[in-house]
C-alpha cells in the first residue's frame, strides 16, 4: 500500500487564508479520512486540480459547488471507484491507495452514489446486501445458500431508520419511486458505513419532508462518531446541518466555511465564484 512517499500525512499546503475557518483540528486529532493534492483529469477535462480535504470524527462536512465542479469525482476517488492521477488519500492518518471500491468498503467507507448504484431488477433487500450476502448456517452454506429471511428482516430495519416508506423489501428496486430508491441507497450506506459516509446528493429526489428525515439521519450518524461528507444543492439544509462547508470551484477547494460564522448567501457567492473574484480584486 505504501508508496515511495512518506507515510506521514502532510499538513494541508492549501491557502490558509481561504475562508473564515479551517478544519477544527482538535489537538492531536487525526482526520478519519483525508485527501492531499488530489488531481484527476478525464482526457482534457481537469476535474480536480489538487484538492485537500480533512474529515474528522463526528463531523458533518458539506461539499458544495456548481455542476461540474468535481464533487462526484472527489467522492468516487474517496470511495475507491476512481484512481486519482496524483495526490494521496489517508485513512486514520495511514496512506491508502484503493484499487477498487471493495477496498474502501472493507475499511468502512460507505457511499451513496449520485446514480444510487442500485440494481433495478433485484429486490430491495438484495440491493442492500449485494456483495455482502448472508448465507444460511449448515451444509448449504457451502454453495452460498442465501438467508433471505434474515436479510429481508435487517433490510427492513435499515430502511426504518430513513423513515421513508418502502412498501415491501421484496419488491424490485426498479419498481419504486425516485425517493424510495434514494432511501434504499441511504439506508444501505448508513447500515454498513462504520468509518465514514460519503453522500452524493442523497436528497435530490426527495420531497421537503423526506429531506428533513435524511437530514436527521445524517446528524444522528455523525453524533455516533461516524463523519458524513454531504453533497447537496439544498444550501439552507447544508447550512443548518453541517459543521463545516467545503466549496469546490472548477476542481479546487476555494473555501472552508463554518456555517456558524457565515450566512447562506456567503456560501452561494463562493459557489458562483463571486467571492473568489472579490477576494482577488481586493
Amino acid at each position, binding site marked *: 500500500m505504501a508508496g515511495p512517499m512518506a507515510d506521514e500525512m502532510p499538513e494541508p499546503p492549501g491557502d490558509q487564508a481561504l475562508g473564515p475557518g479551517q478544519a477544527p483540528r482538535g489537538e492531536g486529532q487525526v482526520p478519519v479520512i483525508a485527501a492531499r493534492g488530489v488531481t484527476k483529469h478525464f482526457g482534457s477535462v481537469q476535474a480536480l486540480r489538487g484538492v485537500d480535504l480533512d474529515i474528522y470524527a463526528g463531523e458533518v462536512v458539506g461539499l458544495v459547488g456548481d455542476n461540474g465542479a468535481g464533487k462526484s469525482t472527489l467522492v468516487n476517488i474517496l470511495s475507491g471507484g476512481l484512481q486519482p492521477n496524483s495526490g494521496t488519500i489517508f485513512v486514520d492518518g495511514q496512506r491508502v491507495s484503493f484499487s477498487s471500491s471493495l477496498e474502501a468498503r472493507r475499511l468502512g467507507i460507505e457511499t451513496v452514489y449520485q446514480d444510487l448504484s442500485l440494481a433495478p431488477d433485484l429486490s430491495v433487500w438484495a440491493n442492500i446486501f*449485494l456483495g455482502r450476502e448472508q448465507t444460511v448456517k449448515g451444509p448449504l452454506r457451502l454453495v452460498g445458500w*442465501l438467508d433471505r429471511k434474515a436479510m429481508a428482516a435487517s433490510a427492513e430495519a435499515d430502511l426504518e431508520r430513513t423513515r421513508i416508506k418502502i412498501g415491501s423489501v421484496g419488491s424490485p428496486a426498479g419498481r419504486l419511486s425516485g425517493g424510495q430508491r434514494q432511501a434504499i441507497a441511504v439506508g444501505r450506506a448508513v447500515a454498513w458505513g462504520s468509518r465514514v459516509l460519503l453522500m452524493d446528493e442523497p436528497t435530490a429526489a426527495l420531497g421537503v419532508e423526506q429531506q428533513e428525515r435524511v437530514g436527521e439521519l445524517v446528524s444522528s450518524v455523525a453524533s455516533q462518531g461516524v463523519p458524513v461528507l454531504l453533497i447537496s444543492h439544498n444550501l439552507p439544509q447544508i447550512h443548518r446541518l453541517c459543521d463545516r462547508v467545503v466549496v469546490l470551484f472548477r476542481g479546487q477547494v476555494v473555501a472552508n466555511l463554518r456555517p456558524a460564522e457565515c450566512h447562506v448567501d456567503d456560501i452561494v457567492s463562493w459557489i458562483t465564484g463571486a467571492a473568489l473574484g472579490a477576494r482577488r480584486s481586493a
Partner: protein
Amino acid sequence: MPVRLPAAFSPPASAPPARPEGASPGERPAWLDLVDRVGDFWIVGVLGLLVLVFGLLNTQLFTKGAWLSISNFSVEYLLLAIGQTFVILTGGIDLSDGAVLGFTGMMSGWVMQGMLNSGDSSLLTTIVGFALAIAIGFLIGAANGFLITRLKLPPFIVTLGSLTAVGAAPSLVNGGTEVSTLPPQIGNIGNGAVGGWIYTTFLVAVVATVVFGLFLHRTRFGLRTYAIGSNGLAARRAGINVDRHLVWVYAISGLLAGLAGMMVMANQAVASPLSGQNDELDAIAAVVIGGASLFGGRGHMLGTFVGTMIISLLVTGLVLVNVNGSWTEVVTGIIIIGAVALDQVRLRLAEL
C-alpha cells in the same frame, strides 16, 4: 468481513410520522398490479393454449407416444437453455453451445471407442466419457468467458468465433464419421425410461433444471448473476469480481453443453459430428420465450423450462397435425418475436 452497525441510529422520535402507504397521489391503479402479477405467468398460459389447440386438432397429442417424443425432443434444448439462462441474465449470449454439444460428444465418443478397443471396462469407459465431455465443455466455456472479460470483447463476437471454430472441430475427430462403438451403458441411458413414461435423459435434464434453478434463484452466485446483468457498475461497486463471475457463467454454459452432448449421444446410440448444429438458436429462443430480457437482469429458470416445452410441443404438435416441418421454424420465429413484443408491452405497462 465488513461490520454492520447496531440498529442504533434512529432519528429522534419527535420526527413527524411517515405518510401511510397507499395514500400518495401517484399510486398505480390496481389493474396494473394484476398485469404485473399475471405477467410473469402468461407464458404458462401460452403453453396451455398450445396444448389445447393441438389436442383439439389431433387427440393423439394426449397419448403416451406423443408425450415421450415431446419430452425426448426437449432434452438437448433444455440442457443448453439452462446455461443460456445464466449467460443471458448477465446481458451476454452464448452462440457456441450447440457447437460445444457436437464437439464434446464427438471427442467423448472417440475416446470411449479407443478405450473399449484397448480392453477397458465399459463402466470405466462410460465414466471417463462423461467426465471428458463435461470437462471439455467447461473449459471451452471458461475460455469464452476469459476472452470476453480479459480482452473486453463482446460476447456475441467471442462466442460466434467459438461457434465457427468449435463447430468445425467434430469433422476433424474420427475422420469426421460417426462413432458407434460405445459402451452399452450409454445405450441404456438413451433407451431407459422411468416407469416407461420418463426417459432417463429427460429426467437428467429436469434434475439439472431444478439443481441449476435453485442455484440461480437461491444462492449468492445466482443473485450476483442477476446483479451483473441488472447494473454492472453497481455490482462492481458492491465488491463483486464481475470478470471472474462471468468466466464461471460461461463455463457453466459450456459444462451443460457437454452434458447435452452425452445425452444426445445416448439418445442416438452414436456420436455424430452433426449433433448440436443450430441448437443454440432454439436454446436462446426458449430462454427469450420464457421471459428473459436479452439486456440482462430479468428472467427465470421456470420460464426457460416452459419456453423449451413450448418449442418442443410446437415441433411435435405440428408434425402431429401434418404440417410441413419447415412451418415449425416459421411459427417458432413468430413466437419469439411475439414473446419479446409482449414483454415490451408489459414493461411499458409496468412503468406506468
